[in-house]
C-alpha cells in the first residue's frame, strides 16, 4: 500500500548558535500535490530545505519520506531516495555543457564503475547511450534543446534555471524541491515557469516550492505553509492562508 503522505516533517528544529532558524516545524506533503512554502526573508525556508536534503543536520525532529526515515547528513542518499532540488542561487556545473550537466544528474540512477569505463563492455556502452538519450529528452522537456552543447555558465539566467530543473529531474525524483525558481524573472518568464512546474506535476512528480512571489504560489499551489521566525504559522489551502490574519501581519508587519 502506498501511503498518501510523501513527506512528513516532524518537529524539525535547527539553530545556529543562539539563532533559532527552525522551531519544531511539522508539516506534511501529499503525493502529487504542489506544496508551497512561503515566509518573509530569514523565516527559515531554505534552512528547512537544507535539513531535508541532508546538507544540514537538524538539531531535533526528523523526516519520514516515502514511508521510511531520511538519514541526516547524507545528501547523496536523499537524492537516491528520490528527493531532488534546485538552489536559490543557481548551482550548475558551469564549465560543463548543458547536456553534461543533465548527464551528471543520471549518476544516481546508473551503475557503471571504473572497470566498466576502462573495458567499455556492452553493458557500459548501452548505459552510456541511455544516459545521453535521457539527458537530450530532458533538455527538450524544459525547452532548452538548442543550448545542448553550450557551457552552462554561458546560458541566460532563465535557461540556467531550466537547466537546473532538468538536472534535478534526471535523478527521477519523487519530490522535486524548487528554491525560489522565479527569483529575478520577469512576468513572461514567470508565466512560462509556471507552465513548466504544472507540467512536471501532471507527469507525476510531487513538488515543493519555496517562493517569494506570493501571486505565483497562491495561483499554483494546492496547499501552502507559512513560516515566520522559524516557526510554522499555518498550513492550508491558498484561499484560507491568504485571509489569515497572522500571515498578513507576518508579511506586512504588525
Amino acid at each position: 500500500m502506498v501511503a498518501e503522505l510523501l513527506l512528513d516533517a516532524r518537529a524539525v528544529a535547527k539553530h545556529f548558535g543562539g539563532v533559532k532558524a527552525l522551531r519544531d516545524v511539522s508539516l506534511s506533503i501529499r503525493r502529487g500535490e504542489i506544496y508551497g512554502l512561503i515566509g518573509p526573508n530569514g523565516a527559515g525556508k531554505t534552512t528547512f530545505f537544507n535539513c531535508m536534503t541532508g546538507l544540514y543536520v537538524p538539531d531535533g525532529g526528523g523526516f519520514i519520506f516515502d514511508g521510511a526515515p531520511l538519514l541526516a547528513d547524507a545528501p547523496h542518499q536523499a537524492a537516491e531516495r528520490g528527493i531532488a532540488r534546485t538552489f536559490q542561487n543557481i548551482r550548475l556545473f558551469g564549465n560543463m555543457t548543458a547536456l553534461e550537466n543533465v548527464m551528471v544528474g543520471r549518476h544516481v540512477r546508473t551503475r557503471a564503475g571504473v572497470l566498466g569505463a576502462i573495458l567499455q563492455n556492452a553493458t557500459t556502452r548501452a548505459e552510456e547511450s541511455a544516459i545521453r538519450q535521457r539527458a537530450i529528452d530532458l533538455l527538450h522537456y524544459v525547452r532548452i534543446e538548442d543550448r545542448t552543447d553550450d557551457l552552462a555558465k554561458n546560458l541566460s539566467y532563465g535557461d540556467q534555471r531550466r537547466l537546473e530543473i532538468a538536472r534535478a529531474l534526471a535523478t527521477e525524483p519523487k519530490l522535486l524541491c524548487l528554491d525560489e525558481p522565479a527569483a529575478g524573472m520577469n512576468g513572461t518568464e514567470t508565466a512560462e515557469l509556471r507552465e513548466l512546474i504544472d507540467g512536471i506535476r501532471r507527469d507525476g512528480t510531487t513538488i515543493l516550492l519555496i517562493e517569494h512571489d506570493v501571486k505565483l504560489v497562491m495561483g499554483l499551489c494546492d496547499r501552502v505553509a507559512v513560516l515566520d521566525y522559524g516557526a510554522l504559522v499555518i498550513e492550508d489551502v491558498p484561499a484560507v492562508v491568504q485571509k489569515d490574519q497572522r500571515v498578513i501581519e507576518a508579511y506586512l508587519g504588525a
Partner: protein
Amino acid sequence: MKNWLNPRSIFGITLIAVALIALPFVAAMGGQAWVRITNFAILYIFLALGLNIVVGFAGLLDLGYIAFYAVGAYVYALLASPHFGLHLPFWVILPIGAMVACVFGVLLGSPTLKLRGDYLAIVTLGFGEIVRIFLNNLNAPINITNGPQGITLIDPVAIGSFKFSGTTQVLGYSLSGPQKYYFLLVALAILIIIINLRLQNSRVGRAWQAIREDEIAAKAVGINTRNLKLLAFAMGASFGGVAGGIFAAMQGFVSPESFSLMESITILAMVVLGGMGHIPGVILGAVLLSILPEVLRYGVGPAQMALFGKMLIDPESLRLLMFGLALVLVMRFKPAGLWPSPERKRELQGDA
C-alpha cells in the same frame, strides 16, 4: 562516436607508430643518454597522467604525489633485490606496487576529504615529506629501506630469460638496454592513455568533473563525493606506483633523494603547463618539462662558448634560470596551458 577506420586516421596512426618505433634509434645517434632521457620523458607521462586524475579531473590539489612514485619504487626494490634476497618477477611486483600505492592513496585521501584548495595542498605536501622521511629513516631498529644509502642491485625487468638490461640481438639488430625499456614503456604508456581517455568520458569521469565544479551541487544530485574523491586518489596513486616500479627496475637503484618535494612540484607543473584535465596537453607538458632541462643542459655550455668564446655563467644555474623563465612565459601568455581542452579554453575566454 569517432570512426577510427577512415583513411585519415589510419594514416595518422601509422605515422605516429612509425615515429614511435624510429624514435629510440634516432635518439641513440646522439648517444644512449638520449634514449634514457626519452625513457624518463615517458615515465613522467605516466606520473603526469596519474596526477591529472586527481588534480585535473577531480580538482583536488595534490602536492605530495611523488610519495606514490616512491612507494611503487620501494616496493619493487624490496621485492627484487639482494636487500631481502627476494627476486619476484616484475609482472608480480608491478600490480603489488600499484596496489600498495593505491592503499597509500586512500590513506592520504581519507583524512583530507573535507579539505579543498590550499588546505588540501598543505596536507598533501606534508604527506609527501612524511613518506620521504620515513624512507630515509627506516634503517633502524630494523633495516627495511636501508636509509639514505638506498637500495642497490635491483633486478631489471625480465620476461623469462629475456632481460631488459644489457644489449641483445633482435632480428639481426642490436638493441641496447634503454632501447628495450623504451618499447616496454611505450606499450604501458599506450595502455595508461587509453585508460585515462576512457575514464574521462565515463560516468565516473563526469562525476569527478562535477565535484571539481561544485561539490554541493554534486552531492545534491546524488554523487557520493567521499567515495569518488577516494577513488580519484586511489587511481592516481596506482599510476604513480606503476611508474615507480619501472623507475626502480630501470635505474637498478633507489634512494629517498629521488622523491623530493621538487619532483612533486615538477609533475604538477607538467599538468598545469600542458593543460589541466586535457590528456594530450598533459602528455605534451610532461614531454616538454622532462626534455627541456636536458636540452638546456647540453645546449647552454656550447652555446655560450660559441657566442662569447668563454663560459660567462655556470651552465647549471643558467639552465634552471631559463627553465623558470620558460614556465613564467607560458603561464603569462597561455594561462590555460599549452594545449588546453576546448572547454577550458572557452572558459578562460568567456571570463575575459
